[in-house]
């Protein structure tokens, strides 16, 4: 009797639930035959996958690019400590198939933005569930789903909070409609170099410094003019001198380099900033700058005084004290030495990894020294890791709730409820007294708003007010999508522009470019660079490899469109504009 009731390999119980809940038998067939695309098999993704499978879904495709790390294990229950380092999607598939042998899960370890996934790929799914952790990929999925006209379920979770948003471009507000807070806040270069105001600025500076010394120096790095302090550069200087001064040993080189770096970035630079500030009222606090003698002593002592293990233990303790300036100098030198050795062994650039004890200790120490110079309260290495790694706290219990709501919403959708009649669900621990009942709500349903109406867009062209303009065109995804279907191997860019955009759509295109900035058409460039322009003109879409990805199309009138060229054999060229509003 027990076995019969609890047989976990029996899907009939699973379908009974849906059948009874939605009082329909058709739902079972729908569940059985709908293909679902799950993007992201992280915290929410694991829960969603489990719920999909045990709600009876059979055909599921997983896309995830990530590997499993130790800090995932507190919530991603499909993974175990022995799986660390493996692909999430692959392990998740294996585990679920073991739990539920009748499921048919396919896997891609691939970026969702890759060309591996053309529009046709998305079109085969009954719904897409997006359980991603970054803004950029979410925007992309939102856009592709709009082009493919596939319902999308957007999920997100941070700490105690989370939300589920069903999106069907054209009938609901899309992910792009509401401007999202920028994930990476741009900090002015001079703030980082000369006027840090918060400990974050110091940490960012320290990370830049890490890149200057050991990493790949990018132009966006505000310290990029300090190229001569790159370790590779310093090392070359040394080998050059080596011929003349044979006495210097590895040890000496290490000490010398440490001294130079500390002198430059933690003594001279700070003195320079101080001199800048002399004329202003505020001045740097009395710097705890070590004397040359002290520096030498540090250089000799640090190897015995510190160990990687101790630093590792320390970084795991949220209660550890913020390092004193002396300690920060010592740790800084210790880490510099360690990193120099590591660099020498690998002979290649190092990248900052907040999970690496030495890199983290380096950034912590550097930021501590800098913060204390600017009279800012520094952070301990536990907190620095959170800031440097942009770590967002995550809980299994929040993910569970979000993963469940999304699957239930999906079931409701399959049972015949319109996307716009579903609701956005918000899980928020902040209690809300409701006037009528005087109670608190943990999971709040929110009505789905329709996309911003189109007439506003037209209005903007009349008003031409800069402010209004920018504001109204904010959701391009909901209004200005052009789906181009053509045989990409035969249609040239000129044909696409002349026959397609100009004739069929009555547009005056100004420029067409891909998201990575590859300009395939520019109306003004024709005369200036005739050869290049002609070459592009005559190339087919397939030769330029711009099919199956979003394009930005700017009209002469200043209206932006988003385009997508879908490759289909035997179709000469047809452009359709998706989602004209007002019909609804």
């Amino acid at each position: 009797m027990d076995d019969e009731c609890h047989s976990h390999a029996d899907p009939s119980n699973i379908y009974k639930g849906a059948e009874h809940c939605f009082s329909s038998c058709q739902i079972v067939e729908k569940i059985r035959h709908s293909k679902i695309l799950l993007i992201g098999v992280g915290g929410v993704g694991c829960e969603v996958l489990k719920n999909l499978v045990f709600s009876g879904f059979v055909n599921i495709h997983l896309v995830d690019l990530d590997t499993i790390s130790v800090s995932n294990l507190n919530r991603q229950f499909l993974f175990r400590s022995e799986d660390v380092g493996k692909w999430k999607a692959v392990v998740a598939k294996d585990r679920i198939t073991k739990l539920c042998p009748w499921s048919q899960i396919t896997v891609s370890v691939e970026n969702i933005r890759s060309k591996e996934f053309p529009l046709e790929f998305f079109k085969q799914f009954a719904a897409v569930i997006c359980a991603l952790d970054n803004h950029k990929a979410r925007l992309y999925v939102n856009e592709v789903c709009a082009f493919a006209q596939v319902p999308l379920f957007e999920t997100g979770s941070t700490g105690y909070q989370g939300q589920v948003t069903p999106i069907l471009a054209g009938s609901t507000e899309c992910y792009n409609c509401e401007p999202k807070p920028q994930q990476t806040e741009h900090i002015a270069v001079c703030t980082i170099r000369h006027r840090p105001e918060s400990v974050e600025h110091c940490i960012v500076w320290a990370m830049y410094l890490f890149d200057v010394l050991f990493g790949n120096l990018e132009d966006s790095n505000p310290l990029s003019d300090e190229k001569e302090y790159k370790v590779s550069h310093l090392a070359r200087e040394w080998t050059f001198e080596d011929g003349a001064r044979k006495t210097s040993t590895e040890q000496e080189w290490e000490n010398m380099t440490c001294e130079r770096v500390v002198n430059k970035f933690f003594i001279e630079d700070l003195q320079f900033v101080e001199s800048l500030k002399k004329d202003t009222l505020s001045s740097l606090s009395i710097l705890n700058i070590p004397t040359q003698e002290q520096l030498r002593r540090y250089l000799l002592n640090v190897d015995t005084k510190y160990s990687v293990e101790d630093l590792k233990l320390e970084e795991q303790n949220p209660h550890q004290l913020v390092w004193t300036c002396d300690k920060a100098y010592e740790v800084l030198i210790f880490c510099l030495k360690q990193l120099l050795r590591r660099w020498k062994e690998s002979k290649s650039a190092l990248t900052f990894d907040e999970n690496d004890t030495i890199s983290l200790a380096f950034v912590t120490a550097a930021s501590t020294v800098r913060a204390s110079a600017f009279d800012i309260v520094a952070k301990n290495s536990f907190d620095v890791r959170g800031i440097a790694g942009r770590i967002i706290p995550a809980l299994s219990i929040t993910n569970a709730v979000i993963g469940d709501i999304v699957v239930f919403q999906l079931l409701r959708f399959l049972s015949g409820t319109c996307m716009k009649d579903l609701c956005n669900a918000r899980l928020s621990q902040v209690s809300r007294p409701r006037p009528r009942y005087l109670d608190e709500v943990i999971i709040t349903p929110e009505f789905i708003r329709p996309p911003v109406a189109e007439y506003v867009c037209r209005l903007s062209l009349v008003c031409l007010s800069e402010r209004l303009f920018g504001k109204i065109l904010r959701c391009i995804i909901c209004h200005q999508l052009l789906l181009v279907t053509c045989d990409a191997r035969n249609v040239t860019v000129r044909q696409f522009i002349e026959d397609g955009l100009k004739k069929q759509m009555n547009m005056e295109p100004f420029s067409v470019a891909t998201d990575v900035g590859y300009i395939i058409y520019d109306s003004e460039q024709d005369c200036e660079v005739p050869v290049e322009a002609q070459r592009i003109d005559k190339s087919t879409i397939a030769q330029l490899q711009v099919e199956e990805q979003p394009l930005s199309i700017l009209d002469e009138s200043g209206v932006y469109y988003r385009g997508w060229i879908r490759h289909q054999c035997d179709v000469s060229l047809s452009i359709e504009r998706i989602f004209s509003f007002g019909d609804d």
Partner: protein
Amino acid sequence: MSSSAIIYDRQIRLWGLQTQSKILKSKVFLFGYHSGLLEELAKDLVLTGVGTLVIGKYSEYTETSGQPKFVTYLGHDLEELVKALSVLNPRAQIQTVNTFVEKHFSEKVEEQNDIQIVSRLIETKSFEICCLICERIGCPVAFALNRICRDNNTLFVYAEVIGALGFLILDLGSHYTYHYLNKSSKRASRLRSTNRNEVIALDDSDSDSAQVDNHSYSMSIENERTLEYPTLEQVLSNIRQSPYPLYFSFLAFVRRWKEEYCMTSQDCLEDRQRQFEMFLQLHKIDIKKSELQSSYNFCSFMNVELISVSSCLAGVLGREIVKLISRNEKPIFNTFIFDAFSCLGSIVYIPSTKVDRKRSREDEKEDSTVYDI
């Protein structure tokens, strides 16, 4: 601590090391049918790091037409479930009641009855929290367990899923104290932090509370508050007072139905609906016509379990259990309803008959003024 510090890093950043170490030391007892809800809750707790988890299965049931259809996936039986959970967190001690009893009672427990063994277990006071996963367990058993928990200062949580509806009823005793981080102190601490440039301003707009929680281990301004919970019996006998009479009368009806009706009746949808109507009349519960229609829909899923609803409720309950272990923040006072169809999960206060309304109003007022600031 070191390896667990890495594993639990993402949650330590949320609730601090102190709470995490409390969780690692905590002992929780789950009792009920081996259902999806039980599995989900056990899974969530084990992942979060609960130190000792003892699971008891209520096995006393008769086969009827109304037999619930559970969706379980971690194991066929309790032993398998325990094994599967131990794999999820090898550090946790996960035991069945039987193995726990063998280990901790020198002499064998004489009682044959599940309930008696469970009572003995609770009487040892080895658990802080007892969760009753109440599928088809009759009210008398639930009330009895609640009484035993109350007598032994064990926090008691009652959880039930009926199709697309989920219910939590908490009885944390007549004197439950917790640390309340009220808004003014939050603001004060933030003010303090801004002065010292301490705020992590990754996302200012919607992570207010998360930000403060982030540093809850360094918080010094706390208020201690006390709540007085009615017992489960008082709550269930007082459903008419609730702002959602429909949900609660349905819950009460399902309990009755599981005890009595489903054994005898032919069990078709119309039959259930008729019985529900009779139940409402009998208890003189007034429900709006429009609401009544949706209650008829409820009747169709009285004995099924949807994994997505179960694990949603388990998630909410898991969060509550963390609150209970850490004694931080106000737990659900005292009932929680989740309706998957409308996506609404709300906390409702159902007063006991003994506690007079006036007092509870004052309580509410006190709270709402805090939110107004």
